[in-house]
């Protein structure tokens, strides 16, 4: 069954057809930097075609958690992971799964916009496609345009496609990064505090964009901004000191949390 993850066939649209309610299932996930344990035995199931927010005070391990979902955590030299993460029922940490393939299926957008500064806007979006061997200019043109449209950037940049990515404003750069991630047609999109480096107007545009994307993608967003979680997320997980304290529908977490810790955090009593 691992073949599914190892193969790299075009699977556009498969996420819609997939009948599974849970796209990602996390089982007993723990993570370390050196000897410091940053995630403690996390169990959670993430629904397909929904937005799941992960909130919690800084240092609670929320970034580490999503970096475990596309095997980016292990890139830090001293980092260690144990436990299982199932993507469509396949454990991405099992021996014969290649992290490169996982990352191709699970896209990521980072806190600070990180376009490739020496590449043009076009090449930024096309970068991942070219890796996958798409060289035909017509196909590239079509996919680049589609991704930029999906990221609500096309109208702003369609005449400047050969300008460097670094020439855009912060909010535009972040949408360029989203377009770049979408271009390779991932099934899951991980967003690590995607608006924290942006001004409120640019941030709000990105929020709306994220909501518009959930029809086609499973989205996990890390945020330290509770209003943001309340606005965009269908489900919210509260992480504290590396432990998953509470995980439920967003409305329930915010209106009627079960745990006192969650309640205190949401009420702004710490964090």
């Amino acid at each position, binding site marked *: 069954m691992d073949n599914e993850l190892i193969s790299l066939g075009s699977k556009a649209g498969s996420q819609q057809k997939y009948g599974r309610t849970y796209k990602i299932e996390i089982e007993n996930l723990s993570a370390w930097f050196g000897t410091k344990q940053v995630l403690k035995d996390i169990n959670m199931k993430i629904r397909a075609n929904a937005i799941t927010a992960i909130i919690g005070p800084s240092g609670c391990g929320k970034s580490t958690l999503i970096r475990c979902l*596309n095997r*980016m955590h292990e*890139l830090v*030299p001293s980092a260690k992971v144990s436990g299982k993460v199932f993507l469509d029922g396949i454990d991405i940490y099992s021996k014969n799964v290649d992290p*490169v*393939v*996982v*990352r*191709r*299926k699970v*896209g*990521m*957008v*980072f806190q*600070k916009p*990180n*376009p*490739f*500064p*020496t*590449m043009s806007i076009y090449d930024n979006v096309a*970068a*991942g496609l070219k*890796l*996958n061997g798409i060289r035909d200019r017509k196909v590239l043109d079509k996919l680049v345009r589609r991704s930029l449209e999906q990221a609500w950037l096309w109208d702003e940049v369609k005449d400047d496609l050969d300008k460097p990515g670094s020439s855009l404003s912060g909010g535009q750069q972040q949408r360029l*990064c989203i377009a*770049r*991630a979408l271009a*390779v047609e991932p099934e899951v999109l991980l967003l690590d505090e995607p608006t924290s480096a942006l001004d409120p107007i640019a941030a709000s545009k990105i929020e709306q964009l994220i909501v518009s994307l959930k029809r086609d993608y499973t989205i996990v967003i890390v945020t330290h901004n509770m209003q943001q979680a309340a606005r965009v997320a269908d489900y919210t997980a509260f992480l504290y000191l590396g432990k998953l304290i509470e995980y439920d529908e967003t409305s329930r977490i915010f209106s009627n949390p079960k745990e006192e810790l969650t309640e205190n955090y949401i009420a702004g009593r710490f964090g």
Partner: protein
Amino acid sequence: MSPDDVFKYILGFISGIVVLTLFLMVLELFRYSLPVLSLKFIFGINWNPVVGSEEYGILPYILGTLVTSAIAIFVGVPISLGIAIYLSEMAPNFIRTILSFVIELLAAVPSVIYGLWGLFIFRFWVRDFIEVPLSKHLAFIPIFQGEPFGLDILTAGLILAIMIIPTVSSVSREVLMAVPDSQREAAYSLGATKWEVIRLGVLSYAKSGIVGAAILGLGRAIGETMAVTMVIGNAIGPAALPTSLFKAGQTMASLIANEFNEADPTSLHPNALIGVGLILFVLALTINLLAQLLIWRILKIKEGAVE
């Protein structure tokens, strides 16, 4: 003036000595080479220091310098880049420490010892493993013509390649390590393999710094004297024109080293050699400034950056 100011101005004056020196250097070189400076000096190919029929044309040595440096760059820079990539992106920590140390030792070996090794050891490697096969199979190409001897332009270029490796690789490594991790992460998150991460996220970002490192290597190759002098075969005049890699040649630096002590002070010979020094000075200064500019821009060192 307070003692603090006195202290500061004295230090400032002393640190200005190097600036003064560089300034004086160009002035003196220019003054002494004035009698020979002309277009004929730069574009001439004959070299005759005999009083009465004196003629000084340095084109063959300029070309010799450029050709040997070009070989050094073409061979040395890719190797250095490979080393830099290995050290910055692939090597485990302890290997990185040891290897950087070893490569710094390579930089510490004096030029004259490279020359000695080149003259008695390396030249035979070049002759037997590179030149003989090339001249056997590719002799129809002009640059591979001539009897392989080992004391020639190719050997000089290759020994320069070895000598620029420490400089180019350590500067490129620094440039690569200055690439923010967010660039690597961006590439990883697209499903890139290690090499693709290096290509997309690291090399494209660090391009101009690597060019700077290469130019710094070029600067070193152009001015390098002893090792080249000992292996290049020291041809003179039209014979020194680098028409084949298997021919004895001469660079500007090696010409100065070979002839300076034999120059008759009453002739223009010393002036001609100083003129060669002036050309070398201008070349080295230009190349160095360019390299500093490119490297600093990428390392974003605020102090000392050329604005």
